[in-house]
């Protein structure tokens, strides 16, 4: 009995080896992560039917292991032909020189004009395009429509002032144990979004040094921190939020800034009689009269082609196929992930759902975070400075000065490399 699985494995391996010889098809290896890696398999048969000369091998990797697995594969010379890549990881893999630029190929297939511009931009590093946007992620307001309506405040807000006015009214009605908004204090996304909204660059032009003492970022951070100090948001970290959906249903908080995956979660987890109570709205800009909606973060996953791929042409066909509007629409139906192309939105009728429609509006106004490999570490440090002010009793100015100093240190190697490269090129 024990031997049987082993035997099966051996047979499978043998079959796997044999297939390569007997099969004249080009095999391309594709890595997908988490749920996407599972769902993408469903798109394979139609592709193989269209391109009988190509065989697609999908390997699914859990998100938690994805980054490390990609790095190890890179070191061990074992990267697949293509993979999905969180678009904030693109700069890192570009600096590793692991990816192939896609400009010429993408220009031929003409996807660019159809993709939300902020999302496309996340894939452009050092003037070249390295990823093909697949599905998108951004943040906006999920709110309790009943509580917002009862407050009588302006809605949807067209400026930070209007937004704060509504939150203050909700808090006044709710009393000491209810809050207007939930902002987990260890999340960097919110202060960074506010910074993107005020036009703070976060880093200087080439990503050589930090720029958090910029008055625009200071303004964003002050607005963010004020939401806690004035009692509109509870000082909770992510771990202490016991059950987001239940607490939202109870009215413990009336708003939360979160992403598209929660469209499905709110539908599944809130009881049927509460489904009419929640809605979504785009983020407000800092000042009235600025372009509406206010900027949010450009997230999501891109499809990348690895430099070491042995069959880049066949692999490109697969990536191009995945980014076709029809396939993106199908992928949305299978996974709930929002497509990166406007025509796919139309095709799948996503914007007909009033709860998803604000995402379409928001996606026209998204911006990339600084495109340096150190970004994730810097972002974590940003959340820490907010926490230092709130829990550590530090002044905002001293926290921002320390943030700048620390981030400058994180970027030291990057500066050295840029100078080094510039020096080497000058010599040539």
């Amino acid at each position, binding site marked *: 009995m024990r031997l049987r699985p082993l035997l099966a494995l051996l047979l499978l391996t043998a079959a796997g080896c044999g297939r390569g010889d007997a099969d004249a098809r080009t095999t391309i290896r594709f890595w997908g992560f988490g749920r996407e890696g599972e769902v993408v398999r469903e798109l394979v048969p139609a592709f193989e039917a269209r391109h009988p000369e190509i065989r697609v091998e999908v390997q699914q990797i859990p998100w938690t292991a994805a980054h490390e697995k990609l790095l190890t594969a890179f070191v061990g010379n074992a990267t697949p032909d293509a993979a999905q890549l969180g678009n904030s990881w693109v700069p890192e893999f570009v*600096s590793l020189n692991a990816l192939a630029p896609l400009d010429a190929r993408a220009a031929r297939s003409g996807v660019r004009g159809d993709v939300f511009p902020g999302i496309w931009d996340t894939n452009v590093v050092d003037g070249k395009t390295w990823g093909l946007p697949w599905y998108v992620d951004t943040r906006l307001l999920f709110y309790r429509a009943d509580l917002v309506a009862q407050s009588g405040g302006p809605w949807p807000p067209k400026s930070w002032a209007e937004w704060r006015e509504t939150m203050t009214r909700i808090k006044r009605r709710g009393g000491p144990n209810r809050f207007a908004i939930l902002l987990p204090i260890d999340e960097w996304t919110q202060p960074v979004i506010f910074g993107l909204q005020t036009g703070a660059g976060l880093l200087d032009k080439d990503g050589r040094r930090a720029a958090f003492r910029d008055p625009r970022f200071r303004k964003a951070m002050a607005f963010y921190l004020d939401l806690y100090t004035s009692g509109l948001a509870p000082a909770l970290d992510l771990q202490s939020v*016991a059950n987001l959906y239940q607490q939202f249903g109870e009215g413990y908080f009336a708003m939360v800034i979160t992403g598209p995956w929660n469209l499905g979660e709110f539908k599944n987890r809130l009881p049927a009689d509460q489904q009419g109570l929640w809605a979504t709205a785009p983020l407000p800009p800092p000042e009235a009269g600025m372009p509406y909606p206010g900027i949010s973060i450009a997230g999501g996953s891109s499809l990348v082609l690895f430099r070491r791929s042995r069959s880049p042409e066949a692999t490109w066909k697969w990536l191009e196929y995945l980014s076709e509007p029809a396939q993106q629409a199908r992928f949305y139906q299978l996974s709930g992930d929002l497509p990166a192309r406007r025509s796919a939105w139309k095709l799948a009728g996503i914007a007909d759902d009033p709860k998803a429609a604000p995402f379409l509006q928001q996606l026209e106004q998204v911006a990339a975070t600084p495109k340096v490999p150190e970004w994730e*570490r810097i972002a974590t440090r940003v959340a820490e400075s907010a*926490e230092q002010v709130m829990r550590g009793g530090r002044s905002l100015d001293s926290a921002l000065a320390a943030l700048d100093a620390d981030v400058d240190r994180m970027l030291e190697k990057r500066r050295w490399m840029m100078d080094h490269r510039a020096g080497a090129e000058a010599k040539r």
Partner: protein
Amino acid sequence: MTPDPEETRGSRAERRAAWTLVSPALGAIAIFFALPLIAALLLSLTDFDIYALADIHNLRVVGAANYLRLLRDPLFWKVVRNTLVFVALGVPLTLGAALGGALLVNSKLARMRGFFRTVFYAPVVTTLVAVAVVFRYLYHPRYGLINHLLGLFGLPPVDWLGDPAWATVAITLLAVWRSFGYALIIYVVGLQAIPESLYEAAQLDGAGVWRQLRDITLPLLLPTTFFVAVITTVGLFQIFAEPYVMTRGGPLYATTSITLLMYEQGFRWWNLGPAAAIAFVLFLLIIAVTGLQAALRRWRRT
């Protein structure tokens, strides 16, 4: 007592045979222990990171800079202090809980000793990740059982994992809860090794329970206590999983241990050079503290 030097040295042939016999073991130690250790030491003298991974020309040999920067970094000292607090709180608590539990379990008056031994040992074999979920609920500021109990006594609620001061205590309690069962079993063995006749003699001389504990049990348990103290100290110096799954080192690094800092540097940010330097400092620190404990024991004995 000292053996004759001639006898122990043996003939040349015998010595050669001895070396031949131990060489596989020595080889294994060299490959799996000495080599990685040397590699880690060399790594700690460079700034190996993601860029060096891409192109080895991006590697800079920085000498002692990683160590110097570490010693000048306030975060590192904060983390050292946290770790020392974990040790200073955790070791006495573990020893106390283990000894108390062992005395209870070993007592002739106790019923169902096997059952209680299992109960006390159960946390050692539980999966921390599963336990963390339960403890996070116990510690929850609004719904937690602990704050509910505090409320019954009219005490104000505590933000166990959110308040930097309390978070250290909360993590230490979890670590103690999880590990004292192991120390307890060792104490039970130690207790059973004490001859019954000593207690009988003491009772004849009119010694009470406290006197017996102070003058017989505790002194005879000293070697056991030393062993348990060393094991617990070394374990707590390397505390990682508890803060990692409960707080991720927060709030404000209040629960970041040296090992957690090393992990973050090495495997989250891929700064392998500085991470290796942290590993070495931790290594030296543990050796120093264990040496101190051994010296203390020798001094007590004389």
